[in-house]
């Protein structure tokens, strides 16, 4: 499907808010792709980490907010470590998650998982899940 590139959507309020929360500029990124090359979690993502920034640059934040990528991101900071322009992508991911949680989206209820699953689940998954849980309160 062809997307209309809209001058009014570029630098819209939600994108400004993401930048403000993360204290990062998305326009600093020149799309070299090193973050995507470094990220260990891309096989599970439906949008590359570099594309998250790219969509924000083009004013297509709706796509970013519909993607699973920010939720797969484990904040391991590989992306930030390798970035030649000093963009902290993990902070942008966190800001995207935060904005969704504030709207009551993407919440999870730890108690809804059965005990056997929780015992099987990797610790890192538990930690991220608790982050989300805690950010509710």
């Amino acid at each position: 499907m062809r997307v209309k590139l809209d001058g009014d959507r570029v630098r819209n309020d939600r994108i400004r808010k993401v930048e403000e929360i993360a204290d990062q500029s998305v326009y600093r990124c020149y799309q070299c792709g090193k973050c995507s090359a470094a990220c260990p979690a891309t096989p599970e993502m439906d949008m590359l980490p570099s594309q998250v920034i790219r969509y924000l640059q083009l004013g297509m934040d709706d796509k970013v907010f519909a993607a699973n990528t920010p939720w797969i991101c484990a904040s391991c900071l590989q992306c930030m470590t390798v970035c030649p322009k000093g963009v902290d992508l993990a902070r942008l991911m966190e800001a995207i998650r935060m904005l969704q949680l504030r709207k009551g989206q993407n919440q999870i209820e730890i108690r809804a998982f059965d005990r056997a699953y929780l015992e099987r689940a990797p610790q890192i998954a538990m930690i991220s899940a608790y982050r989300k849980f805690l950010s509710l309160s």
Partner: protein
Amino acid sequence: MNRIGVFLCWCGSNIAGTVDVHRVIEEVRKLPEVAHAENYMYMCSDPGQDLVKAAIRDKNLTNLVVASCSPRMHENTFRKAAASVGLNPYLVEIANVREQCSWVHQQQKDVATRKAYNIIKATIEKVKRNAALEAIRVPVTKRALVVGAGIAGITAALDLADAGFETVVVEREAEIGGKLRRISRTFPYHEPADAILAPRAEALRDHPNVTLYTSSEVTAVGGYVGNFDVEVATDPGDGGPPETRTEKVGAIVVSTGYDLYPVENLGEYGGGRLPDVIDGLAFEGLLADSFRNGEPVRRPSDGRPVRDVVFIQCSGSRDPENHKPYCSRICCLYTNKQARLLRDRNPGCRAWVSFMDVRTDCKNTEEYCQQNIEERGIVYVRGRVSRVWQEGDRLRLWTADTLTGEKIELDADLVVLATAVVPAAGYAEVSSLLRAGVDANGFFQESHIKLRPVESSTRGVYLAGAGQYPKDITDTVAQAQATASKIQSLFANEELAQDPLVCRVDPDLCSACGICVPICPYGAREVDALAGFSRVNEALCEGCGACVAACPNKACQLKNDSMVQVVGEIEVFAAEEGEEDYTCAC
């Protein structure tokens, strides 16, 4: 009776690792007329050259064969060494036993040894008949002529004039300044182009050593390096016939500049059909208007201030299938600058750039571009626009963003095509008049891309500016100054020494048929009707041998490469090698 000296170089193990250098020298010593033969580890080194010099002196050698690497490497080295002890340098020949022997037969030592011996023997056959030649000396007229008075020509002319040399400048337009006159401000400091051009143009017009011909063209060129006769025709501007005059100069600068590839050739973008689809220089004009009258940038069709402008880079460049295969080099930077200046002039407007890559190969320009993207809100969309059409009173474009994989539609008020840089109209005529070759795209060809970047294929004809290849003002000025320096080193000589390895004609054999005249790529042949034979202009002849091959009477011969010498070399091989094939070493 010749007393021939043979010097075989080991080139470390390059030659000696494959060729049995001791056996070869033993055999060479047995050849008639060989008075001396020896080998050494590095003959080109100072001790090696000393061996050569000592042998020439001590053994009264009359001709030399140095068996070593390609003559391109060290022919000059050994000729100079011989000359330093009084032996005519043209009595020295190189036998190439490295590139043409040891390197290609590394697995076949016996074969390589025999071949090295035969190459040396054949070269001895040649050097026996070498003549002692003297360099051809021609006087130098210390005046220069510059064709084209853009910033390249102006810069070269001013440097030459400041160095004290009379300089003639020929400009076909009524005004000097070239394309710089059409540019508003320059990257990366936004200096007005006029602030760069005006003082230089004025200096040129006022310089006592400069003769400036505007509305003029070069119509004929004769002569050769140091001694050109250039006919200049000036349009008197009253409809009358052009006034012509002839200028005698020693060097010529080709600074004919560039044009932009016509937008009409880019049909898919509506070039030439849609009034709001324009090229980069036309947009410079809109920017200049905006700066002059203090108003926003307005579009051509209805004069409305523009809100959305799409800049399309690589319009006709990097498109080997349909347009030009090369990168035009300046468009990335001027497009970024134009988008930035537009954002300054039209608050609230949106600047979109369609790009494949952003190439910022000039000083401080990467930082400049990045800053404009980060802080000045220019949006870059990575993909080539596929089409542009009119939709109501706006333009609609289809493109893609390959970074996300999205197909994209955009609406714009104005589309600026950064069209390919092409050689200025008339380059072909200038090329043929000056015999300065051009490449497949019509850009003037430098003698060597790394080592002789401002010399054309014809000696005495030099290059500056975008006529050689697209370049920005910085690089143009640098190249023009390099050209002026090269010409100053030419003018530092009272006369020029030229290699005497040129063609000569036997007047008794020549029937003045004239076949040699059109075949000569250097214009060095001319039939002297009165004398009844075809002459060689030795200052122009490059010794290529085209006329030698073409002459039906065998009246042309190359000096020290005569037919007798070449056949003599072949006969040595034919006798020694017979039918055997040693070409395949691998």
